[in-house]
């Protein structure tokens, strides 16, 4: 039994590695075809992602919001809700955090940061609740409501920064909120890098996600509902309230992501505040099989892609469009990694069958 399990363990490493190698190979081909130097490019990709403390910090900073939106998608999904709304929830979280973070001058830093993050969480969570309510009251499919609420949230934030929250002292009429106060900006973890405390919160969120689903009764209920509403009903679980809680937490995660991005990196709410964090989050969650560690790792992969490709562009002068293609290759190969499963090949099957049956006979 044990000895039979071992190969699996090895394969868990084998697949992602081979997948990324293959993606890089394809990348190399495309880059060469475009007439650029691929050795340089791929080297830059890695250096930009992990080459130095600063680079690693950058990678982790970029991983943080997508890890949180990833958790947002994952926890809702565990409860049977497809939350495509992380983008909007992230904006609303950032909005709430902006309001708290630009006011309350003179509050001690720790407290101010805490309540701002809480505000961010609530902003996203309450916006998420809307999805749940519409589902419970009108059984409106979240596939639609979430997408619509995304656009609405973005438009609403756009209005806020053009009117009520607009930075009037600003030297230009560029629509943006006031910068959050010094006291709420997240502390840098390593001086000389931009790595901020956000990643710690992300890790805590991952731990929460793991423990909540595996070790709490609410989490157990959510997983049950997610897999079979009828069984959950039969077991006397409260479907609607539990679903509401799930989408509440999901929205909260996304909102927290927005707050962290605001307090750690951008400091102002602007129109293009989120660079698709919401949708990348979905990919992150699913790439990580919705399991805690997986989400953490694929989040870092996405972060690395972002920071790495920035450097790659600088070094190789590849246009951004090519970078997009490269990113898509890596995602595709990682998600489709089973294509490298030589155990599926006929030759191997025949061989393995023999071996096993001999094993059984003896």
């Amino acid at each position, binding site marked *: 039994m044990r000895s039979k399990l071992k190969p699996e363990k090895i394969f868990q490493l084998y697949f992602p590695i081979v997948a990324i190698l293959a993606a890089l190979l394809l990348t190399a081909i495309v880059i060469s075809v475009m007439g650029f130097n691929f050795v340089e490019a791929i080297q830059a990709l890695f250096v930009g992602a992990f080459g130095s403390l600063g680079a690693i910090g*950058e990678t982790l900073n970029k991983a943080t919001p997508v890890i949180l939106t990833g958790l947002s998608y994952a926890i809702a999904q565990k409860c049977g809700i497809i939350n495509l709304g992380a983008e909007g929830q992230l904006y609303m979280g950032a909005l709430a955090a902006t309001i708290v973070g630009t006011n309350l001058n003179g509050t001690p830093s720790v407290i101010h940061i805490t309540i701002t993050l809480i505000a961010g969480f609530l902003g996203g969570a309450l916006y998420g609740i809307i999805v749940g309510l519409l589902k419970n009251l009108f059984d409106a499919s979240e596939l639609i409501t979430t997408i619509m609420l995304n656009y609405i949230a973005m438009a609403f934030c756009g209005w806020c920064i053009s009117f009520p929250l607009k930075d009037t002292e600003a*030297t*230009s*009429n*560029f*629509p943006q909120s006031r910068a959050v106060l010094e006291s709420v900006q997240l502390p840098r973890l390593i001086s000389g890098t931009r790595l901020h405390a956000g990643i710690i919160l992300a890790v805590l969120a991952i731990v929460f996600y793991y423990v909540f689903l595996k070790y709490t009764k609410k989490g157990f209920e959510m997983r049950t509902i997610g897999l079979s509403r009828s069984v959950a009903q039969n077991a006397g679980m409260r479907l609607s309230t539990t679903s509401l809680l799930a989408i509440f937490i999901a929205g909260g995660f996304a909102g927290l992501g927005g707050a962290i991005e605001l307090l750690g990196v951008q400091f*102002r709410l602007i129109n*293009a505040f989120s660079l698709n964090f919401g949708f990348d989050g979905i990919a992150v969650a699913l790439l990580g099989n919705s399991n805690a560690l997986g989400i953490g790792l694929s989040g870092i992969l996405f972060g690395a892609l972002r920071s790495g490709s920035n450097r790659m562009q600088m*070094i190789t002068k590849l246009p*951004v469009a090519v970078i997009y293609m490269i990113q898509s290759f890596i995602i595709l190969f990682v998600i489709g990694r089973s294509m490298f499963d030589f155990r599926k090949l006929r030759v191997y099957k025949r061989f393995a069958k023999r071996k096993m049956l001999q094993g059984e006979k003896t």
Partner: protein
Amino acid sequence: SKQPKTSDPSGSEAPGTKHKVALILSGPVSDMSWNATAYNGLKEIEKLGAEIAYQENVDNSSLADVINNYATGGYDLIFLSTNGYEDIGLKEAKNYPDVTFFIINGATTVDNVISVQVADEQQGFLMGAISALVAGEGQVGFVGGMEITPIINGSAGFEAGAKHVNESIAINSAMTGSMTDVNAAKETAKAMVGKGVTAISPMADNASLGVLEAAEEAGIFAVASGLNQETVAPKAVIIAVVKDTAIAYKAAYQDYISGNLPKETKKMGATEGVVFLSDWYEAASALNQETKDAVKALYDDMAAGKITVEIP
């Protein structure tokens, strides 16, 4: 390849000592407008003998990282294409005192950061004025993309311009909320036509083309906001009011190599040739001579600084 800013003015002649110039853009270099002209500017700078690099679609979240890459990558001069970058730009510039930063449309000029402003409102003003001149009995329309400084100022200028020509004219102004959604722009323009607009001007990067096409189909006049746009609507586009930031970039670079960097933020417009009129396109043959002269006159006044446009 670092070297003091007060190097011999002709970096071009000494290949060994090339200046490295980077441009960081918030949009794609193919947007037929703001970022495109910025890119052209960079090309001009390359012709002057600099080694260049640029990065498109850089969001504020990555800006610091990108700046850091260039600054530590041996670049002497970094252009930030929008005042959306001003905050983070200023913050990061402090870390790299011997790198010079130009912020286009920025407002601050300190130590190693110089801001250059482009007179978007002048472009808007001329568009508005021309539209009003050719609109006849009808109304004039302005279709903007996203709410960013150039377009906010542009639309303010447009209204001022239209009013300047005809105090009582009805002005139709809208934002589509996107620089890429050509259809939204086109449909908005069509709706304006339905409301009685007879001369229209877009300011929405690529999406502008949609507006021009709408004008073509509706058989009304249009004023383009950049070169090469007229071909999609030959019967509608009478002229383009161009805002060529390339000139601003080139000038900035020349100041840089000649070592006399501006001490305070300056604004460049018609006077400096950043804002100028294209030739009349064939659609303009429908116009009578005095209209054309009036337009010419307006432009000359503006270039001569006789017209000043308020911005919000």
